[in-house]
Structure formats: C-alpha cells, structure tokens
C-alpha cells in the first residue's frame, strides 16, 4: 500500500517542477503580518485620539439646551462611532496576530492588554499632537452626514432648542445670514451675541450659534462659536494657547475653521 510512496511523491515533484518557496517569501509574510497588525493598532490609536477629541472639545456647557440631565446628555453625545471603530481595529489586529504562524503561543489576555495599552498611549500622543482635531474638523467640514455619527456635531442642527449651525452666506454690521445643513437660510441677529475669539465672521465660514428663534427663519444669537474644534490649524487646543485673534500668534484666518 505505502511501499512506493516515496518514489511517487518524488516523481510528482519532478513532473510538476515544484520548487520550495524562497526563504525571503516566508520572512516577508511574517513581516507583513506584524506590519498589518501594527497598522490596525495605529488605526485604533487614531480612533482613540478622535474619541478623546470629541470628549475634550465637546460643548458640555450647553447640555441644558439639549437635555436637563447631564448624564443623559453624556450618553447622547458619547462618541460611540469612534469607540466601535476602535474595537473593530483592535479586534482585527488581535485576529491577524493570533492567526499568524505562532500567534496561538501568545496569551489572549496579555495580547489584548498590550494592544490596548499601546493604542491608548499612541492615541493620547496623537491627540496631543492635534491629529484628532484635524480629522474632526475635516470630517465636520466635508461630510454633511458626520453629525449623524457624532451627535456633539449633530445637536447643532436644532434651532427649536436654540442650537443652530451653518455656513455664512451674507455678512452685514450686526447681522448675518447663514445656510444651515438642510439648505435653509436664516437671518441672524448678532446684536446681543458674544462672539468667540476663534470665530471669523466672513463669507463661506461655518459657525455654531446659541440663541433662539424669534420669527420664522430669524434667529437671535446669544453666542457665536467656532465650527472647528480647538484650533486645528495651529495645533493648539484653545484660542489663548493658539493666539487666535492676537497679533503675533497664528492668524485669525487660519483659526477656528
């Protein structure tokens, strides 16, 4: 039954001209697994940076306009999307490494713990470097549906509750017109409004308003806030540290948007 199997196999190898795969192929494959796993950890760290950014620069001070209960407000605005993405990326990284040649040798708990710590530390560093703010501002500026996955943004499309946001389409002395994200144009009265130093009131800029509807399509603003979070372009967290609006600091045109 098995007497001639050696010869059968050798002749098959010769007929099919089978050659052993090169050593470098195996080395590259192992390297690829580690790189891919590492890339997923970096993506997880970016998600952590986003999560921290949303929480750090969130408009928690106006929670009463959305919900009387701060806890309910936090539950509403918590960046679940980034948390979910973080879990997905970390799981991919874990799965990739565990499925590698010797992945089964690593203890699950230690693997999870080291991935968690690595992504957390890197995430904090990336957030501190301003990456979270840059991405957050980019998404908010370029994707109209971003408010749906980040309610901290989405809640600003709530004029009945005194929260309005949109793009400036007309500017006059104490008034302006903005087009909200559903395309509706609002006349905004700025007479009693406190304008944040990071805000630039010029055409095409996006702003957030706290106030109240006084007539159909007319909004009286109490406060004008920058649409961007932090001072993304000069990588500073606040207007004071950024120097927005101050001479010598980062210029007003590059801040707040």
């Amino acid at each position, binding site marked *: 039954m098995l007497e001639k199997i050696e010869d059968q196999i050798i002749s098959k190898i010769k007929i099919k001209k*089978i050659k052993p795969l090169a050593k470098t192929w*195996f080395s590259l494959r192992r390297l690829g697994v580690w790189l891919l796993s590492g890339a997923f950890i970096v993506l997880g760290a970016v998600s952590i940076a986003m999560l921290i950014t949303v929480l750090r620069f969130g408009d928690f001070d106006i929670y009463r306009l959305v919900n009387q209960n701060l806890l309910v407000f936090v539950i509403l605005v918590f960046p679940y999307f980034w948390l979910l993405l973080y879990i997905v990326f970390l799981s991919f990284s874990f799965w990739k490494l565990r499925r590698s040649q010797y992945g089964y*040798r690593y203890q699950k708990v230690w693997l999870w713990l080291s991935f968690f710590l690595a992504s957390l530390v890197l995430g904090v560093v990336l957030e501190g470097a301003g990456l979270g703010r840059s991405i957050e501002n980019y998404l908010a500026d370029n994707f109209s549906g971003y408010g749906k996955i980040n309610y901290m943004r989405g809640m600003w499309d709530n004029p009945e509750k005194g929260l309005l946001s949109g793009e400036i389409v007309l500017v006059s002395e104490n008034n302006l017109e903005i087009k909200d994200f559903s395309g509706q144009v609002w006349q905004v009265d700025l007479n009693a409004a406190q304008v944040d130093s990071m805000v630039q009131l010029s055409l095409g800029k996006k702003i957030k308003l706290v106030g109240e509807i006084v007539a159909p399509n007319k909004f009286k603003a109490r406060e004008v806030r920058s649409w961007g979070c932090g001072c993304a372009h000069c990588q500073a967290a606040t207007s004071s540290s950024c120097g927005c609006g101050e001479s010598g600091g980062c210029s007003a045109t590059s801040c707040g948007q």
Partner: protein
Amino acid sequence: MADNLEKLTDEELAALALSDEAAFKLIISRYKDRLFYYLKRLTLLSSDDLDDILQQVFIKIYYNLNGFDSSLKFSSWAYRIAHNEAMNYFRKNKVKTEDLDKAVLADDLSDLEADMDRHLESETVKLVLAELDHKYREVLSLKYFAEKNYQEISDILAKPMGTVATLVNRAKKQFQDKYKIYAGKN
C-alpha cells in the same frame, strides 16, 4: 551515504532536503506511516483516498521546507501540515465530521491498535473513539496514539496549551461517559 543520512535528526534532514533528494525520501519514509494513521483517525477515509491526501501532505512539506522554523519540532510541523490538509479536504468536499462513517474508524483502528496495549485493543474502546466528536478524537489520537505532549499538540493544532489541556480533559470526559454507556450495554 544512506547510513550517514540515517543518523541525522529530522531537523537536519529537513535542512538537507532542500538540495538532497535522498534526504527528502528519508523524511517521507520516517513519516509516511505516522501521518497515514493520523490522517486515517482524523478523516475516517478509506486507504485509497488517504494516499492522495498523504502525497499532497508531503508535497506541501517539500514546497514549504524553507518556512520550517527550528523553534518548532519537525514532527509538530509535519503533523500541522497534515492537519491543515485534512481540514482543507473537509472544506473542499463539504464533509461534516458528524457524517463520517464511524464504522470505518472502528475497522481501521484494528490495524493500528495491534501494537497498542491491551486496554486500547478492546472493541468497546474502538467503538467509543469512533463515536467521539472529531476535535476530541483528534486530541486523544495525538496524545495517546501519536504520543505527543501538550506543547507538541499545541504546535500541531495551532491552539494555545490551555485550550489543548481543556480539549484533552473534555475528550477524556466524553470518552468516559460514552464508555460507561457501551460497557453497560455489554
């Protein structure tokens, strides 16, 4: 020359087999029976079908020789390739392990168990083994027939040692439960 090769370890032969046909032939002759019976217990296939799988296993061993890492025992690496090939066979042929013909296993074990101790030779043991879930049959087969330790089984199945220990314990438990039922009947 052949005598010199005989003295070499599997790992040394594997390094030599890249350029020496005789060395690879010797690897085949050292492993053909062991892997044949391992595959037989695992797949419950007939000998003819097994020959094809076994040839495929050795071709894969040759094809992947450069990927053999000396931190692993060669035998564990070879068994792992055989295990993977058996799993590929199941997938390709959409075989559910529950559908496997248990009678085939009981018959085939007769050949293998000839040299085993008397305890393993009993008809009841054969029938009980054939009744076990495929994953339990595999770990028991590796532990008690192929006489592999936990580390080796872990390397073969690419599962953590803790998982292997759990599998072995559950397999023993399932074996004992079924054994009692069979023993009670007779």
